[in-house]
């Protein structure tokens, strides 16, 4: 019964409140008043940032003319300045260039992980969401089993078996994420399965299958991109952790976690090779979760 760390999709029962009454029946109008405007700013910033991230991961060379892998050995550990926006690391490589090129790997693994997890999660979740006690039990137990291994540890175990590298990390993180996604999808499926409009569809004379295809499935799927965005952040976090532990991509790959791990040794004399990738991770995760939460609220809005 330990539900996933997710607030939206298991609740949200539609209730009928004509829009013209909004604000009256709620004891704390402040909750609804002026809320939207505040969200906007953060949202816009996040949107712009994510746009940059995607651009950077597609065409990093647009943002910098430096080679992320080859540096000038006489230019090692130069502090940030005009020549090097984020300074250089101990091999004289441009930290900005590395951070920009790193976007690709972090996003790739992040999305990869979510894709793996969601892929399996959707199938299992929908299966579990059907009106079939045994199937539901079986799948839910599977989720219990997977989720009883701490994400990082499970990923570590999988990496031990599969070996290191980007793909394996993505798979590992994905598998570790299956219960999260699966439970969300299951909850969502059940919510819709029991929704009045599904009953209504039965009254039209639609067959079970038709109802599932026309009403249940689409309404489950609309939630997927949102779930993905909500979770991409946390996935990127785990990934950076793993590559920090040296289980991720191989150096000199400018993956952010790897960069952080490398920067540790020189941190005392040079803060920049570590601070910037660190900021990159945090900013990325924030951006995605802001967008994700917003989409989610919108989504619940359409339900309620």
């Amino acid at each position, binding site marked *: 019964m330990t539900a996933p760390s997710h607030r939206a999709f298991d609740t949200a029962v539609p209730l009928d409140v004509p829009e013209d009454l909004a604000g009256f029946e709620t004891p704390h109008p402040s909750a609804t008043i002026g809320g939207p405007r505040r969200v906007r700013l953060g949202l816009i910033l996040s949107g712009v940032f994510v746009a940059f991230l995607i651009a950077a991961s597609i065409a990093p060379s647009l943002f910098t003319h430096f080679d992320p*892998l*080859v*540096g000038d*050995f*006489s230019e*090692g*550990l130069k502090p940030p300045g005009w020549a090097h926006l984020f300074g250089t690391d*101990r*091999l*004289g*490589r441009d930290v900005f260039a590395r951070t920009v090129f790193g976007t690709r790997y972090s996003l790739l693994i992040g999305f990869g992980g979510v894709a793996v997890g969601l892929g399996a999660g959707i199938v299992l979740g929908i299966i579990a969401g059907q009106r079939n006690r045994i199937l539901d039990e079986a799948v839910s137990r599977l989720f219990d089993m997977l989720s009883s291994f701490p994400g990082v540890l499970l990923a570590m175990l999988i990496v031990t078996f599969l*070996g*290191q590298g980007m793909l394996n990390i993505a798979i590992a993180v994905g598998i570790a994420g299956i219960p999260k996604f699966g439970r969300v999808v299951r909850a969502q499926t059940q919510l819709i399965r029991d929704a009045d409009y599904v009953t209504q569809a039965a009254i039209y004379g639609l067959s079970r299958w038709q109802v599932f295809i026309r009403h249940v499935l689409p309404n489950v799927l609309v939630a997927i991109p949102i779930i993905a965005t909500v979770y991409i952040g946390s996935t990127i976090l785990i990934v950076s952790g793993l590559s920090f532990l*040296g289980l991720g991509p*191989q*150096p*000199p790959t400018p993956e952010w976690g790897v960069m952080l791990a*490398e920067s*540790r*040794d*020189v*941190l*005392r*004399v*040079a803060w920049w090779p570590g601070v910037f990738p660190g900021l990159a991770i945090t900013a990325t995760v924030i951006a995605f979760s802001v967008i994700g939460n917003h989409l989610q609220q919108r989504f619940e809005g359409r339900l309620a």
Partner: protein
Amino acid sequence: MKKNNLLMGGVAIALLATSAANADDKPVSGGALRWGVTTEPACFDPHYASQQAAFFVARNYIDSLIAKKTDGTFAPWLATEWSISEDGKEYTYKLREDVVFHDGEKFDAAAVKANYDFVKKPENAVTAVSLLQAYDHAEVVSPYVIKLVLSTPDSSFLESTSNVKLGLISPKSLAKGDLCGGGRALAGTGPFVFENYTRGQSAVFARNVGYNWGPGNAAHSGPAYLDRVTFRFLPEYAVRTGALTSGQVDLIEGVQPTDAPLFAEQPGFKLLTGPSGASTSFTFNINYTRPPADDVRVRRALRDGFDLEPIVKQVYLGTVPRAWSIIGPANPAYNKALVGSWGNDIAGANKLLDEAGWTGRDSEGFRTKDGKRLSIEVGYPQPYVRDNRDILIQGVQAALRKNVGLDLNLRLITAGEYAKNNANGTWAIYPNTDNPSDPARELWDMLGSKGFLYSNIPNPDQEITSQIDESLRTTDPVRKRQLTDAIQKRGVDQAFIVPLFAPSWFLAAKSNVNGLGFEAGLDSPSSAYDFWIAKK
């Protein structure tokens, strides 16, 4: 650049300072020392240990028959004198009679025999057995005279008997079996008794009060000065440095160059570099039997395709010299002729590769031959990565990519993967610093037909392996010197091996810690036997 000069100056001053200190006030007994070290030994039993970092820890509780001096000659230790028979097959040692193991057992010829037989016995699967290849059996001539008999002459045997791997453990302990966990169970005869071990945290050693002998290469004999020594295992550079600056430990090993100024220039601290030059180098060992590295032109291109100097300078801030040979500059067997004989010939390297047919280029600018990228993997076992060596390799990697379009593919692999590669000889390049021993033994280890790298490779280079075998057999020092020189030359000339730099150890300590030093036999910091803490 400037910074680096300053730093070097700093180190020099520090060295002077310490030596001066040692001269002035004489050592005082007492006090406890906390020593922050990089590596937590996987096994404390010198017979089984394989990490270099484990050996200078072991030295604190393990003695050997004889001690190796910096000049390569040997001094008495548990053996007062020794002799080698004409045919070089019999080594006779006369032992001290006043030595007892930490568990009260008497130390005598029988004990020595027990140890050597134990190591030699296959089913014990002892790592150190590689040193006893030639060893046949031991004879207890008299209670305190032991004769070690070899099947074939072994020019490295004397050195081996000084090696900590063949250090002496109480027969009673040996009988107990697994000693990797350390603790009192592991009873040697060393200046310190193994008090206890907390995994992931520390190992504590207490002074062996009854210790009134000592290695001939030490500054004093009799009991150690320190009451107790605590090894704190601090794998992170920053953490180690921080631990010393914030006074949680008195001494750290493995100071990284960027942190050196913190101690070299700070009052209250001292910085030590040593051994004054390594006796063995950090090298790329290229598997010359696997394509594309089976083509000497490719290997040479790899060797000459980059300028090593600035990379080593950049990574180690000028604190260590680049290497020219497999053997380190401080080693008597060092072949000086090699200096300046190779490297940094980018034009030549490109020419070689063109000749070798690597003329194509792929999207990432790497050379290709009939569609295959010119790529050689460097498989570096993660647990052995230390001392920024991965960074150094990244530097070489970048340079080779830029200069000659060769893809030096660095992979940090698990030790398991390495073990497999080694088992079926599929490794490509292995970056390594060999545990020091006799030069011939060292060369045999890395290039010999039964060495740890080539033992599983079908037909290694005839010429070099035969030279190595002979150098091990010969008892004539001159001949031996010729051979080791030749081997070093061929190794570099054929680019079986690309020497990178001569590693040295950096010790940083509070200024009141004295007697710090390095042990040639280990090519690492010495045991805490001579250390003492000045009373303020």
